[in-house]
């Protein structure tokens, strides 16, 4: 549409990026934190003990509790505390549907090995709610949220591919970084961040779309499966066909002891390799027990052993996947979630996510830096649109991290017996984000940047102190105890604080004195023209 492909693509890249940049930044940052969701969970429930019970004992306790809580359930699910994803013994059950329900009611509990009863810990959204926000967005109905993030992901996809096309010297530019050159430096930084983790950016965006593919492209499913309310379910049932699914016989029969079933599985896979125990129709003559192994590859579905729940006989050894398209899908989803990743790879995932977040941030800053000189020359000052982007950029790029700090603060400071405390943790996050967007209205924009960066840096820096004052698992102790979840969390907060503080200092140094001490605080001035030189 412009003269030449690269010009057209540059135009597209700019506007597509601007359109959804703020939501994408939020999605990338909260999604990145999701790679440490359970670690965050544990930090947010400091009362929880560190469990290391034996598998047999865990399963015995879980089975007893399930017998008591849901003897007539359709399904039991046990997650023993054998890996990072389930640091505490967790049970889950689903009752038979009553009346015209499609699915029965469900329940789940974290169990204390010592007592066999549910653990008592403060109510919190934990790392799970934080991670969920990156696709469910909070406050909005789920269907709407899925469509919003779907549109944003499509924009991201277009931005990535058009960005590659613009970049004729992709490898040369990768080694190019011109410091202290204002706009040019921002562009170089944006390029380096984009190129260095390009495969990750493409993978995470495309696989993100695949999670809800059937929601975004319902006609593709409908054209083969017909219209109807449960079209999607019929399709997935057929795709994920599980051979050993049996209907309930409605004849009660005593269960084979789970201990012996576990032993068979451990003989095959080795110790500590069990990820879950899935019992369908417990107490029925057609009971089935499926045992899954740990994920050791991106393939999302793991190998499974299926046993007859009454005789304890091994029925089959199910391979992890059945067909190529399903394997591709499972691999994409598995790569996105990264559940298989060990500590090193997990940190690499985290780092890649941060690079993606920074890529979006630098792209958005670049938009304003590029237009500022022109906008400042205008007689009536910058346009409304430009000012709006400036406010939303600052409010989001600093406000979302500050909001996440507020989320952690709320977890420690809200009274433990306050009923709606997990709701208010989330309100603290979004409230801070909102306030950070409004703040530049009453302050000159560059000054607001420096002040918000300092605010966020302080909020992160003080978190280990708040943790010290409100729990007994402070940094001094967690380091001595080699409690890497707590020590890692506190140290990461300090590192984030350092990063934000350095950004604040660097920015302030570049500002002329006049920008920091304006005559009237409400005067919307743009001293950045000098600032970006």
């Amino acid at each position, binding site marked *: *549409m412009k003269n030449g492909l690269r010009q057209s693509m540059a135009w597209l890249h700019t506007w597509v990026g601007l359109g959804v940049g703020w939501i994408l930044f939020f999605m990338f940052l909260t999604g990145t934190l999701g790679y440490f969701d359970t670690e965050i969970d544990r930090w947010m429930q400091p009362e929880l003990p560190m469990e290391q019970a034996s598998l047999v004992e865990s399963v015995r306790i879980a089975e007893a509790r399930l017998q008591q809580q849901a003897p007539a359930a359709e399904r039991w699910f046990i997650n023993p505390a054998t890996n990072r994803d389930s640091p505490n013994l967790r049970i889950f059950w689903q009752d038979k549907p009553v009346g015209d329900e499609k699915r029965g009611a469900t329940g789940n509990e974290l169990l204390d090995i010592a007592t066999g009863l549910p653990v008592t810990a403060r109510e919190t959204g934990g790392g799970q709610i934080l991670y969920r926000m990156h696709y469910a967005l909070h406050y909005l109905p789920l269907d709407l949220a899925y469509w919003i993030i779907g549109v944003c992901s499509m924009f991201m996809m277009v931005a990535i591919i058009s960005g590659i096309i613009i970049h004729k010297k992709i490898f040369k530019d990768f080694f190019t970084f011109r410091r202290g050159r204002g706009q040019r430096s921002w562009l170089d930084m944006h390029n380096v961040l984009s190129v260095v983790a390009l495969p990750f950016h493409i993978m995470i965006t*495309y696989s993100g779309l695949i999670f809800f593919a059937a929601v975004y492209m319902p*006609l593709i499913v409908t054209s083969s499966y017909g219209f109807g309310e449960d079209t999607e379910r019929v399709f997935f049932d057929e*795709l994920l066909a599980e051979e050993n699914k049996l209907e309930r016989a409605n004849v009660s029969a005593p269960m084979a002891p789970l201990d012996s079933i576990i032993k068979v599985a451990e003989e095959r896979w080795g110790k500590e390799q069990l990820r879950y125990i899935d019992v369908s129709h417990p107490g029925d003559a057609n009971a089935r027990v499926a045992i899954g192994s740990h994920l050791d590859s991106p393939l999302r579905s793991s190998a499974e052993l299926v046993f007859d729940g009454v005789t304890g006989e091994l029925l089959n050894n199910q391979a992890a996947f059945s067909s190529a*398209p399903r394997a591709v899908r499972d691999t994409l989803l598995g790569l996105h979630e990264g559940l298989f990743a060990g500590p090193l790879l997990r940190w690499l995932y985290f780092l890649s996510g941060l690079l993606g977040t920074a890529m979006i941030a630098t792209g958005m800053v670049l938009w304003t830096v590029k237009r500022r000189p022109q906008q400042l020359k205008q007689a009536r000052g910058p346009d409304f649109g430009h000012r709006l982007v400036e406010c939303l950029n600052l409010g989001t790029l600093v406000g979302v991290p500050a909001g996440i700090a507020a989320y952690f603060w709320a977890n420690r400071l809200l009274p433990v017996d306050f009923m709606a405390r997990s709701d208010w943790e989330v309100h603290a996050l979004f409230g801070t984000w909102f306030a950070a967007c409004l703040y530049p209205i009453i302050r000159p924009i560059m000054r607001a940047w420096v002040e918000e960066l300092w605010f966020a840096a302080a909020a992160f820096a003080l978190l280990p102190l708040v943790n010290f004052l409100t729990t007994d698992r402070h940094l001094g102790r967690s380091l001595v105890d080699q409690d890497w979840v707590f020590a890692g969390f506190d140290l990461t907060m300090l590192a984030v604080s350092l990063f934000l503080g350095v950004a604040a200092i660097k920015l302030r140094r570049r500002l002329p004195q006049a920008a920091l001490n304006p005559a009237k605080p409400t005067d919307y001035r743009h001293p950045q023209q000098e600032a970006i030189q």
Partner: protein
Amino acid sequence: MTRSTLQLSQATNRYRWQIVSRILAATVGGYAVANISAILLSFILPMSRSEAVMTSLLLSFAIYTLAILWVFAVKSVLKAWLGLVIPSVLLGALALLVKLVEAA
């Protein structure tokens, strides 16, 4: 208003409408092309029904992305629209034909 500023504002208006038209073509037209070609694919792939549908779902977003990029890459708006409408109609007709033959 002098003649030259009038011409300028007319040109600006025309440019704006072209942008709107392209955005519509990319979002709606691209979505249609992605869906229709994926549906045709799901009918003709030599796999079981659920596998063919999954394969088509996996590819549909790539087709959509390419369609969007194409709309903004071509010189004229008309060409952009034609490039979406013609394949949509042809592939759609083909898909319908396949479905009818199957049913017969």
